[in-house]
């Protein structure tokens, strides 16, 4: 295991510990990275939906969103919607989303989003779903997405 890898793992573990410690409330303790405005569209149990949020990197170090999971869905993945030269709009999985130092990156309709399939329960407006985001440096950030119809 390279030392860089080890460092990532350690910071991820710290992230887990801190996040657990903070589960009674308050912002995630990940260094420099904060996630806000987390929401998903309603979906029937077993259905698909997309999650959106804003990542703020207030630190001085570039970071990357490298993974997402949810205890409340069968699969969760980073996707990007784009329109090709022929005018077709579609989405494709993406491995990571860069979060440069000092930047604010929005995951929003028609762009980057988290694709969730097989949500374990119906998502009704006012309800919520849990997401676990993994950043290369900041480690694990847990977030609760509000179900919104807009």
């Amino acid at each position: 295991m390279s030392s860089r890898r080890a460092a990532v793992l350690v910071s991820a573990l710290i992230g887990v510990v801190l996040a657990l410690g903070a589960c009674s409330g308050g912002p995630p303790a990940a260094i420099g990275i904060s996630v806000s405005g987390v929401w998903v569209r309603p979906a029937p149990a077993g259905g698909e939906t997309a999650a959106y949020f804003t990542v703020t990197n207030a630190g001085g170090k570039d970071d990357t969103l490298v993974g997402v999971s949810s205890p409340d869905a069968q699969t969760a993945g980073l996707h990007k919607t784009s329109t090709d030269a022929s005018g077709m709009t579609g989405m494709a999985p993406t491995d990571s989303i860069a979060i440069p130092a000092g930047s604010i990156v929005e995951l929003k309709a028609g762009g980057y989003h988290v694709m969730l399939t097989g949500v374990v329960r119906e998502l009704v407006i006012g309800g919520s779903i849990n997401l676990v985001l993994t950043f290369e440096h900041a480690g694990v950030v847990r977030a609760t997405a509000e179900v919104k119809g807009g």
Partner: protein
Amino acid sequence: MADAPSQATGQAKPMDRRAALFGGVLLAGLGVLAVWLLAAVFMARTGTAAASPTPNPSDFTYADAKAAPPLQLTDQNGSPFALTSLQGHPVLVFFGYTHCPDVCPATVGIVNQAVADAGVGPRAVFVSIDPERDNAAAMKSYLKYLPPFYTGLSGTPDEIRQNAQGWGVKYAKVETGSVGGYAMAHTADLYLVDAQGRLRAHFPFGTQAGPVAAALKALLAETPAPSDAPATATPSGSAAASAAASAAATAASSTQAPSAVPGALKAAVVSSAVWAGGPDPVILTVGDSTGRLLDGTVPVDVTVTGAGGAAAGPAVRAVAVQPWGETVEYYVATVTIPSPGEWQLVLQSADGRTGLVAVDALDQGTSAPLGAVAPDIHTPTLADVGGVVRAVTTQPNPDLRLSQTSTSDARAAGKPYVVVIDSARFKVSPLCGRALVMVRYLLDRWPDVVFIHLEPFEYQVITEEPVLSGDIKNPPLNQWARAFGLGDTVWPGVKMPWAFVVDGQGVVRAKYEGIIGSTDVDVMISLITGNGVIGG
């Protein structure tokens, strides 16, 4: 076709929760991306759309109105549809697919917002370009979540190809590598057809609601006020009746509209299905005039009324329920709706506020009736079949807790039970398998309730792969599904999945077909077990 009127009638109906689910998702954030897309899409599209010349880039409208390309497909009720049937209304047309998590709901949000801003009259047509997964049943289920002015079209791969080509719409399957299957890339533009059936504007994906609403308003101003005729071609002679009912509903709601009354109640229907011939527990959320939900401590009475406002039964006190761990308070009004079709629930709170919500009551057909004792049958358990898992479930990685107790065991023990009639392998509807996902969630929440999975069809287990006894187009129901009355001919073919919620006395308290909300079942179990009843 029992619920056909729900698609055939009007604008006056308040959006229920299903509509509100996707409703009005206005994508304020699209800004920069939209500009980028507009530029990119415009460059790409010029000259590519068979449908049209280049629209005016400032407002996306065409200088020359030409007849819109034809749309001849199948609507959500399984009836033939032609775009010409919507003449007299401005129509927004777009192409997408029901498994689409990002692009299509975004377009739906734009359409809903634009129609809300433009006023009564416009229709919307959602054409599926995913014939492999979307059929009429899938479109119908999807439309449950949308306002009533939508028609959802599907067809064979050839029909879809032909229709899409006429509009210059392209689509392709994209493997996403996920368990969830594939995605579709497609032309996600929005087309506006006027009341005379002419193509008048073409909005690239990413256009916000403002320009769409402006174009709709312009069309509404130039055409005579549209009559509130049915949105879709109603196959029977009930079209006129539906139109009349709809007109009456318009009149009724314009005088009683909750938003027009200070201190009014705003209600939304949560129940996935509302049945005629009750007693049917209709699950509602009730909010005040600002939309803030009542917390369940304010008593609310509910009366069923016809379109003309005449009461169809006595006022019923709704029971307030908050399932454990949930943040929303629900009101459950157990009402008896006289017959299938459009009805209204009039709400009155103890502090004098009133509200109104429309419901589309379904025909119970021969399915095990509400309020009656459930069929006295012994659904098969693992023990009954010598532990051969495939003989009781076709689900991959099944949760065997769903196959350990029979309906008769639950009844003998006086325990409430939920029987989910669904198949992961023999899918007669795109919704099949979803109820099984839902029930696994509920299973962990309610240890004192028996959850049972029942495969609906007859099949043999000779090898590891179960083999259906008949044809998947007309699959043979087994004796237990028949006992629950699912062999009905009221519905075209067999609709799946089903769920029945039965209380400790063996009485059917709720039932669901097609989309089954875990919230529905959660609230019903709370009600039956008394766990989470507010002020109870």
